[in-house]
């Protein structure tokens, strides 16, 4: 099948790739660009470990054709830190032990980051609704909720 040109920006870096149109966004991110922080955990758009941000909005990159992201700005977990300085959400996750095996963490971080961009001071219920699309088999979610609550309280500042 004929490949086509895809131009998109990932973590502020512009990429031009030739891909088959059936390539999923997650495949472009992991296999073509080589950013393996984003994971895959199901075939049914259920688990959320592939969550990334498109123009500041959380989406599941396994349920989007890469060609549909033409010209868009994508942020992955690798794009959260800035020259070695962790983003507030990453620090909050460290302090609250909001991860265990770490496989859902990238997607979880992106859902939380997107939630906070839209709503800097979410309630507990809003936080839970914001990460409902992400399965974590290890933590039972509460430590993640506590991390976001701490951010909402303004306990963390951008460095």
């Amino acid at each position, binding site marked *: 099948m004929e490949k086509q040109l895809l131009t998109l920006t990932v973590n502020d870096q512009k990429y031009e790739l030739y891909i088959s149109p059936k390539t999923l966004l997650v495949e472009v991110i*992991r296999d073509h660009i080589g*950013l*393996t*922080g*984003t*994971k*895959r*955990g*199901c*075939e*049914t758009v*259920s*688990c959320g*470990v592939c969550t990334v941000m498109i123009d500041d909005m959380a989406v599941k990159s396994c349920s989007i054709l890469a060609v549909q992201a033409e010209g868009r700005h994508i942020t*992955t*977990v*690798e794009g*959260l*830190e800035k020259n070695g300085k*962790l983003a507030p959400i*990453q620090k909050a*996750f*460290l*302090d*609250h*032990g909001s*991860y*265990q*095996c*770490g*496989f*859902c*963490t*990238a997607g979880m*971080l992106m859902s939380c980051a997107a939630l906070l961009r839209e709503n800097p001071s979410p309630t507990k219920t809003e*936080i*839970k*609704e914001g*990460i*409902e699309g*992400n*399965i*974590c*088999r*290890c*933590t*039972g*979610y*509460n*430590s*993640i*909720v506590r991390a976001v609550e701490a951010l909402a309280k303004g306990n963390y500042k951008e460095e």
Partner: protein
Amino acid sequence: MNKYTVINTHVHNVDGVAKVTGRAIYTFDVKLPGMLFGKILRSPHPHAKILNIDTSKALELPGVIGVVTGKDTLGVKQGIWRRYQDLCDEQILPVDKVRYIGEPVAAVAALTEEIAEQALDLIDVQYEVLPAVYDPMDAIKKEAPEIHQGFERNINVTRHIEWGDVEEAFDEAEYIREDWFKCGGQAHMCMETRAAVSSYTPDGKLTVYHSTQAPYYMQGLLAGVLGLKEGNIRVISHYVGGGFGGKFELDGAIFCSAVLSMKLFRPVKIVFTREEDFNATKRRTPMFYYVRTGVKKDGTFCAREAKVFTNGGAYTGMGATALYLTGFFHSFPYRWKGYRYDGYRVYTNTLPSTSMRGFGAPQAMFCSEQQIEWIAADLGLDSLEMRRKNAHYTGYEVPDQATIGSCGINQCFDTIKDWTEKKGKLPENRAIGFSAAGFMSGGIFNWFDTPYSFSSAVVTINNDGTVELHVGAQDIGQGSNTTLAIICAETLGIKVEDIKVHSGDTDHCPADLGAWGSRQTLMAGNAVKMAAEDAKKQLLEFAYAQSGFNIVYDLDIKKGWVHAIARPERGYDYAELVKKAIRAKDGQRIVGRGYYTPHRKGMISPAYSYMLQAVEVEVDRETGKIKIVDSLTAHDCGQPINHLGLIGQLEGAFSMAAGYGYLEYMPYEDGKLMNPNLVDYKVIRSTEMPDVPVAEIDTYEQEGPYGAKEAGEGLTNPTAAAIGNAIFHALGVQMKECPIRPEMIVNALKEKETKVRNKEVAHERASKVSRMR
């Protein structure tokens, strides 16, 4: 007040930064030069002879590099119970017949995953379909098909536990109750599906990246099935996306990728799809429980007898252990004058059953703790006080089985009692249920038949004082690397930041039985403590030689400060001491060794944790839907080591256990799993998760490092029963099957109403009749 400088303080996970920045490389992410992608062809039949496999068409497909079947293997029947040959019953690529839907039949390696998948359709397998059986109660019938040769009535393993004179104890009982229970299976559902990358090179060495709980098991098992020396196999597993008991047996990914790589001399990667991970790995063991319990009218426990059939599925795996542990923990945490357990593991043509977090105990507690609640209700007793009256205590001996070194269950009862009383009267359709449980801190049995110690550690001190800690223990997310670093730092008297933990690599780390049965904090922890003490001793001996002090143990190191215990202000920097000591040793680095193997610790485990789980549940009488609105966990894990890790483990155990209680359901039809995907298999999500506050009960476990014992697995045991007990108190129905699904609750309520109506009618008729007389 914490008497330690590092233990039980707020410490970041040692691999935290790697995990929150996406730098952690999982097997799922591994990419090697020239790597091929493998896919596995799976049996569509629950039970069939393999007559012939034609792979020629698949090999013709451009991009396909190789195909293997059972004929390309040594045909070794393997199992993790190596000590018992007849329990080594599984060929991962079977030569003669398949025994469950999804069992591997052939494997393809190709340039891309897509080509490999296309090639599967081109493999032509001829089967002779055999009659199949799916239910243990059918499988033990005379006419049932034979699944494994020589296993009469498909009985795979039997276990018998008995103490006291059970008949006599039942004679003493004033009230006897018997119930049948049915406990379902549960998928481990690790976020990282089973995955492996194998690379065999012309020098006869095999390197395998594998998502595993026990690299050493993989090394040993692979050596056996591939005919290689253990030493020629290197298993690497730096980051693992969850395990929960499902990742320490040989799986299709590791075996097939290894066989393909040995044939092709190229790296081969196999990653299971989520569907494969549901259909063709293993699961929590479904069980049928008959429980007969005899008590005195005042609630004193006399005797208990349990008869259990477990659905073992097609192979043994770790199922044999689950069969023993369910029978033992069914007695927990109580004292029985007479106790008898007859457990039977039965082969069926379904997915093999194995260990899963709780290891047989969640099923045992679902039955035991609900029946105890009902008995208290039958006798009009306070169920919490009845439990307390019969509970274990420090120093109690479970006859012929175990000695309880530390037990905080009594304080657990106090905590939950207060909480319940503070709640006061609850709104309608809401009720509190609780359940007690206990669990082991690592198994003492050596069924893997290894000469190595159960746990080992090596502490190497560099000239700047930083430490290389090598452990065979495996971090699968539970945070063992952090816990072990904390123990090492506390012992040496330095900071966690100065310790680098090396694990998950059989070439560089000492052998260890790995992450299962809640063994690592106690066993690997003891090994690390011993290694650190060894290294510290070498340092202090030198310091002593230099100092004017008269006896060695006068010296200590705390927060990097070498000093006399009597005169802490007098001392000097630890790094300085290290430099001098290394010089004095002719430049050798300071190396400390430690190991742990339990001796004379009974039949099960060196130490036991205790806990009480309470849940407040809201039930919708009309729909049967339940919601856990609040909870409290009272938990005795001895001395907590890794505070953040402990809380996370307990909350996580709760979510998995609650899922087992009312959500996670594995329905089979003709041997086929009906919901092998995350749309139809439901797990707890953030919106269903209640707050899970934890009350830590302080005890000290002599056998554990700094007094620590199990945490994080045991709490999977009580929750399903706690939910059942809450439903019992809210609606007065007894749920004898888990997961407790809403439809079952509605049906139970209907049944109850008809019973009540019938009684009324009967009563009315009776009174009429009497009037006629």
